[in-house]
């Protein structure tokens, strides 16, 4: 039977752009062009590699986001995913990790899955907890922050690199994995992939399709709220240590003063 892989991806403002908060302290999506989160490209890449190694696999890429989020799905489809699911609903504006994981879980159940693959965090919200919340909601094992991942014999295995040790971890399918930016560079879409992407199915869903109460999502339904946001102050000029014989000592004194040594 076909291995059903669902990759959850996010459409985010380009991290190289000049990003801002909107007036309601949510992400300002108008100020900067959006794209498929770079960290989620790693998830798409690992899903593609798992699918290529499997006899028979199908990759569904899933996103929750505004109309433009289709661009993120299209990118993943052009990289080689087979089909897409787009959950779009005006009531979703301002949804936090709790609401996002709820919507993703319902959509993943709707799509059908053996393996869920995610990135390690989004490049805008960067909470990094959605994979864990999602596994909990789906009631499946989670093996997160993998730098290597493979599927065989009904199990997903992988390597999780920590500061002190590297763990070999595994879980029985169905399961959820998240992969890090060390898992391997994502491929570029080939020209054939780009041309094929438009013909691949994108299923559009809203909250009522998934049986979700609008009160459980959006800004009002969020468990967390951003109270205040301020631009990071500009970096102040550094201290230049000029070596006139005492440079080493001055440098050490500077580092000691700032508790680096």
């Amino acid at each position, binding site marked *: 039977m076909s291995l059903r892989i669902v990759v959850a991806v996010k459409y985010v403002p380009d991290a190289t752009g000049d990003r801002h908060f909107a007036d309601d302290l949510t992400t300002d999506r108008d100020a900067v062009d959006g794209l498929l989160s770079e960290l989620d490209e790693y998830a798409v890449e690992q899903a593609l590699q798992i699918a290529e190694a499997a006899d028979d696999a199908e990759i569904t890429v899933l996103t929750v986001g505004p109309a433009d989020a289709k661009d993120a799905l299209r990118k993943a489809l052009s990289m080689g995913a087979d089909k897409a699911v787009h959950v779009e609903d005006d009531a979703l504006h301002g949804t936090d990790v709790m609401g996002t994981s709820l919507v993703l879980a319902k959509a993943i159940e709707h799509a059908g899955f053996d393996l869920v693959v995610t990135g390690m965090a989004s490049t805008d919200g960067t909470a990094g907890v959605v994979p864990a919340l999602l596994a909990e909601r789906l009631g499946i094992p989670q093996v997160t922050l993998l730098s290597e991942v493979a599927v065989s014999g009904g199990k997903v295995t992988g390597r999780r690199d920590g500061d002190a040790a590297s763990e070999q971890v595994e879980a029985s399918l169905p399961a959820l994995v998240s992969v890090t930016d060390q898992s391997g560079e994502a491929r570029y*879409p080939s020209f054939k992939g780009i041309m094929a992407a*438009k013909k691949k199915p994108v299923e559009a869903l809203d909250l009522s399709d998934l049986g979700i109460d609008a009160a459980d999502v959006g800004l009002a339904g969020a468990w967390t709220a951003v109270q205040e946001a301020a631009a990071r102050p500009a970096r102040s000029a550094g201290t230049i240590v000029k070596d006139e014989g005492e440079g080493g000592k001055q440098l050490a004194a500077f580092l000691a003063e700032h508790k680096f040594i």
Partner: protein
Amino acid sequence: MTTTGSTFDSALLETEERRALRKAVGALGRRYGRDYFTAAVREGRQTDELWQEAASLGYLGVNLPEEYGGGGGGLAELSIVLEELGAAGCPLLLLVVSPAICGTVLARFGTDAQRQRWLPGLADGSLRIAFGITEPDAGSNSHRITTTARRDPATGGWLLTGRKVFVSGVDIADATLIVGRTEDARTGKLKPCLFLVERDTPGFDFRQIDMELSAPEKQFQLFLDDVALPADALVGDEDAGLLQLFAGLNPERVMTAAFSVGMGRYAVGRAVDYARTRQVWSAPIGGHQAIAHPLAQAHIELELARLMTQKAAYLYDAGDDMGAGEAANMAKYAAAEACAKAVDQAVHTLGGNGLTAEYGLASLLTASRVGRIAPVSREMILNFVSHHSLGLPKSY
């Protein structure tokens, strides 16, 4: 690095697929970048890694027919590939000749056997074909070409004699498509014909011309003295040579324009980065109009040239060879002028740094001149427009 934005980011002007191709090729190009390109030039090697990777993603054969492994797109797509690689600082010059001229000519006019032999390799980048037209005494005037082929009665093949100059990449190309002439059996007049000369053909003599150009691809002179070619070295139909030739020259002009626009965008991007961050006294220099306005002007002129390039590619892909000819000439002219001006202004924006090896802009001063001279000079285009577009008397 800043890559300057464009009105082409609008989905109203370019299809979703073409915009996706731009983004993908741009991302690949930026991963290699200018440093990769200049290191290859310095070390005297080719930018093969980029060529291979772009090939495996199908970017080099976007314009070639799908049945031969190409992408089934057109010149619009191929010019996007070259422009975006150029805007990232690492153009692949042979795209102008191998898939654009030679791939087009073979796909449109080659025999089945010639297509089978060459197109799959051109599409996947494993084969390259150079293009030799310019002669020491005829320039690129195809009516004055003296390289001549005559039938070899002993073999039924051809004996090709002549000289060519400024042929790019002969050393790394598996064959060179040579523009020659044959004698018309009926009228005795000479008519253009295209011949594929494989690199290892006995008597095929090519010598490198020392150029003051920083490019991985080298320039060559060719010396052909009764070089024996098989009968199937003749491309397509002996009687359709001129048509075939022009079918290849329009893509060449469009691709040269894309090459210039890419280089110009790269130069403006570097200058804009510098002007934003370089601070003299209290403010970034980009806040001064003497710096800002010429860069804005360069950007506008590149955008205009790009628009004409797209128009030419559009007409060509739609099958209007005549309409594409005028637009392609205008695009080549406009892009070369815009590029030369953009590079000039970029270097000037950086002041002394514009001439350092570290910033790598100075070498573009010569490179940006190529588009003004090749494949036809600015003046030949002005002749064409004077005569064909404006109906003025011919000057030569």
